[in-house]
């Protein structure tokens, strides 16, 4: 290997790990942060744009997995293309991230754990709702279930460990708190988070583009709505006249 190439690999901020003959894992040697995630998201977009050899890319808090559509691409090809693309990116360029306001009904019918959780947190249900809906959340990535957003930004006043025993059927659209995270269940599924509300909004629709309105890097906040507003939005969604902003 040429000395010069080696040097440039060494100055990359991530380590390169061959996970599988067709997959390369890049891992940044630093704690997750918004800046890091923006860097990863930007890098991912550039790679997808420039390399036709890529089958798909998955990201995590401080890593990125490239799956190639060919087996055994040479190490030199893989490493040098990654460095060339990485160093050609202008990470300061403004991005196209959006903000979304998610309507949530926090009323008892949809919030089976709100009362209990509030007591445990030494807050009133009203305070929990207030803190949860004034927060600004950041979409890190989508995983766990199709359309399940990993959100960052929950107020530490609302941190609470997950249930010891997950329940089998968390209703679709449930807004919940688990550990230091909050999230929305896109589909009915088993789950161990505490349910504090419900959104009528569809998080994932495999039959309609863009499948999920949000993407990594977007921001999101929750807006408290009444049961009547919930029903109204639900009806509009069925009619196809609801537009999330």
């Amino acid at each position, binding site marked *: 290997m040429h000395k010069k190439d080696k040097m440039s690999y060494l100055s990359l901020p991530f380590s390169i*790990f*061959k*996970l*599988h*003959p067709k*997959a390369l*894992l890049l*891992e940044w040697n630093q704690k*997750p942060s918004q800046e890091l995630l923006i860097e990863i998201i930007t890098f991912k977009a550039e790679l997808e744009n420039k390399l036709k050899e890529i*089958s*798909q*890319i*998955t*990201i*995590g*808090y*401080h*890593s*990125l*997995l490239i*799956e190639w559509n060919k087996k055994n691409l040479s*190490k030199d090809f893989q490493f040098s293309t990654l460095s060339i693309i990485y160093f050609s990116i202008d990470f300061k360029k403004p991005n196209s991230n959006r903000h979304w306001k998610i309507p949530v009904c926090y009323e008892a019918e949809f919030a089976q754990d709100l009362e209990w959780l509030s007591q445990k947190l030494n807050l009133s249900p009203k305070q929990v709702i207030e803190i949860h809906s004034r927060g600004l959340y950041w979409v890190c*990535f*989508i*995983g*766990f*279930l*199709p*359309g*399940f957003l*990993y959100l960052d930004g929950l107020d530490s006043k609302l941190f609470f460990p997950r249930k010891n025993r997950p329940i089998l059927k968390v209703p679709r659209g449930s807004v919940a708190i688990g550990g230091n995270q909050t999230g929305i269940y*896109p*589909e009915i599924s088993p789950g161990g988070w505490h349910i504090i509300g419900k959104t009528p909004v569809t998080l*994932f629709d*495999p*039959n309609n583009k863009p*499948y*999920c309105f949000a*993407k*990594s890097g977007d921001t999101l906040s929750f807006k408290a709505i009444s049961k009547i507003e919930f029903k109204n939005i639900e009806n509009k969604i069925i009619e196809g006249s609801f537009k999330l902003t």
Partner: protein
Amino acid sequence: MIEIINSGFYTSIQDKGRIGFKNFGVPISGAMDQHSFSWSNRLLNNLTNSAVLEMSFKGPKICFHEDTFIAITGAFMGPKLNGFSLEMNKPIGIKKMDILQFGNAIRGSRTYLSVLGGLQTQKILGSRSQFKGITTFERISKRTVIPIKKLSFNLFKGSVIKHTMINFDKNILTAYEGPEFDLLPENIKHQLSFKKFHLSHLNNRMGYQLKEKITFKLPQIWTAPVLPGTVQCTPEGKLIILMQDAQVTGGYSRLLQLDDDAINCLAQKGTNDLLQFRIKKLT
């Protein structure tokens, strides 16, 4: 079309899987044993991504409502056509109203049934593989009716390729060192290579848990990408091998990564089967 009279233990429509939608949290899905799956299509000269039926542990009873050709590969489930034993691994002509019945898997765990031209259910996100929240149904049930291609008047010539079958006795899985492998002390690395592990009853299309634990406390990691074949280790030392329907990211340490043949081999195992890893470094 074909009609499912009874569904067996767990039967679903599968193809190569859904590629390119991990960004939305959509698993790959697809046939667990991609080797047997591919052969079932090759025997009929089908396109390589044609959808087939994947049957697990106990197969279904099926009625054909039109003439077609089929091929059966993978685990032996004692297939019978109108009550008579049927050969596997070759193209077979089917007449309207024929009844095909499978029993319990005797060798292996998963059987693949391909139909000429492939099963014609709706493709969603580029695949017909059934998965909860993506396809209308997550698996096949009693009375399900599946559209198939009309047999054209061109006489179908069966493929005569000799095919390599999965070795059901093989229990050595080739695995590469995973990203967190080096967090392990030498004695545990040694255990992973030389110990024999049993498959627990907790095994399904999402993942297989092993009975034996490792005696080392590993930290959880920042949620990171995983693949089918990733061997995860929970903080209690439980080992979980992810399979086709696994989620796309995970928070457990990734000790090993199975190679593709090892995944196919594992897909044919069942509860209490013995396994051993042969660990290689990928360069």
